[in-house]
């Protein structure tokens, strides 16, 4: 019996325990509601979390496709990136997996001497946390970029009116001569 097999057999329990821990980072009344409401549109946080944790459990065992792992992490990390969490708290969910495994299989690990496999799994969890950190930082960067973009969009015509925005990229792309002034309308 390997640890991976144990986890695979008990996947439902593992994911549920993991989900409980992640939801416990929210106010308790919200956590319960997000756990029971199975409407993916009425309860996007609960359902996305559940789906992501299920996929991540498989990924942690298979540990093959980095792109697929990131694809599973992304929806969940993005949600936590815009909720009221400090970065550490937002990403803490990854490490909960260690706790889940120990709480469920401590005896089996001792009995079957699975420490080596456990250490291997732990290092995967740590790698997963690093991947999650990349996604988290990217999401936060996006957020700040959006603030800037929004400002630019809002004032698009004003910039054009004052002629302070030179549409350089267009010129480079088309290879056309830069026009003398901002307006290109025909006289």
């Amino acid at each position, binding site marked *: 019996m390997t640890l991976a097999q144990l986890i695979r057999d008990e996947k439902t329990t593992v994911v549920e325990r993991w989900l409980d821990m992640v939801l416990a980072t929210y106010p308790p*009344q919200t*956590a319960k509601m997000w756990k029971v409401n199975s409407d993916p549109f*009425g309860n996007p946080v609960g359902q996305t979390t559940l789906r992501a944790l299920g996929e991540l459990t498989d990924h942690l065992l298979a540990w093959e496709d980095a792109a697929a792992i990131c694809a599973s992490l992304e929806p969940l990390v993005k949600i936590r990136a815009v909720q009221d969490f400090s970065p550490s708290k937002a990403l803490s969910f990854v490490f909960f997996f260690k706790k889940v495994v120990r709480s469920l299989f401590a005896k089996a690990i001792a009995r079957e001497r699975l420490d080596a496999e456990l250490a291997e799994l732990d290092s995967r969890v740590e790698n997963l946390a690093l991947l999650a950190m990349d996604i988290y930082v990217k999401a936060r960067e996006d957020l700040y970029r959006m603030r800037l973009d929004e400002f630019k969009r809002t004032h698009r015509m004003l910039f054009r009116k004052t002629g302070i925005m030179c549409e350089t990229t267009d010129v480079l792309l088309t290879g056309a001569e830069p026009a003398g002034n901002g307006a290109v309308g025909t006289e």
Partner: protein
Amino acid sequence: MNAFYGLFIVCALALAALVGVGGGGMTGLFAVAIPYAAVAIFVVGFALKVMCWAKSPVPFRIPTTGGQQKSLDWIPYARYDNPVNSRDTVVRMILEVLTFRSLFRNTTAVLGKTPDGKPQVGYFSEKWLWLAAILFHYSFLLIVIRHMRFFTEPVPLPIQWLDWADSILQIYSPTLYQTNLLFLAGLGWLLARRLLYPQIRYISNAADYFALFLIIGIALSGIYMRYVAKVDIVSIKQFTMSLVMFSPVVPKEIAPSFFVHLFLVCVLLAYFPFSKLMHLGGVFLSPTRNLPNDSRIHHHENPWNPKIKPHSYEAYEDDFREAMVEAGLPVVKQLEEEA
């Protein structure tokens, strides 16, 4: 904790009635003075509250529109979810009040799988709250009507029919009323969801539990009288009729459990006008439901409309005239006139 407060107060009230009538010798107070006072408080309080609401005007027509508006002739519109005349608005209100239509809207979707394994969305109505509310309110209504047999002599036929229909199953002796069961089922669910759903528990305060426990107390004491204590109904009717005739007589045969029942009902009546139970009256006055969506079609008068003037065009032109003229925008007053 809030639930405990509610339960505690109701138990204390029941005990007060037992002690008062049993050992305290205050039968007169509990049998006569309190019922009359409670009915008076209920009637006057209810009327005053409704008048208080009605006193505030409805400055704007703000219906929450629940469907397609009436616009172009060839677009079918949601007559009862987005009414434009009084008749359809009345229908909307009837649907709201009698069938709890808004509660019925609750939907939830579940992600299922098609036979070939592709995800598919299914929709299920989240109807438990609606069902419990319907059960509770209609049973309550029927029970109240049924109780009218204690206050009328001879008992009008419709009430007799109702009594017969309600016990149509003919089980147990005295025959079991179905409404009693449905009533308790509805109440039970309404209480259970307050206790079990964390988010509902979070928003519930002591008053919410108090009302529920009070009504449960009334129901249980009534059921106890009928099926367990099997109290003397003839003397109770004698007593209730005497109350109706304004010449109260309290027969000695009446069991104390009756007074618990009566006292809790009195508390409910007296508490009613000061509590959220006034939703009974309020639902009729809710401006998001009882008005047609027609203020583009007809003028609606706001009694306190302040007629605030806008920043005038003249002031605007004064502010920017030079630039407007330069840009070739038409102006009312030319530049030289200003000077």
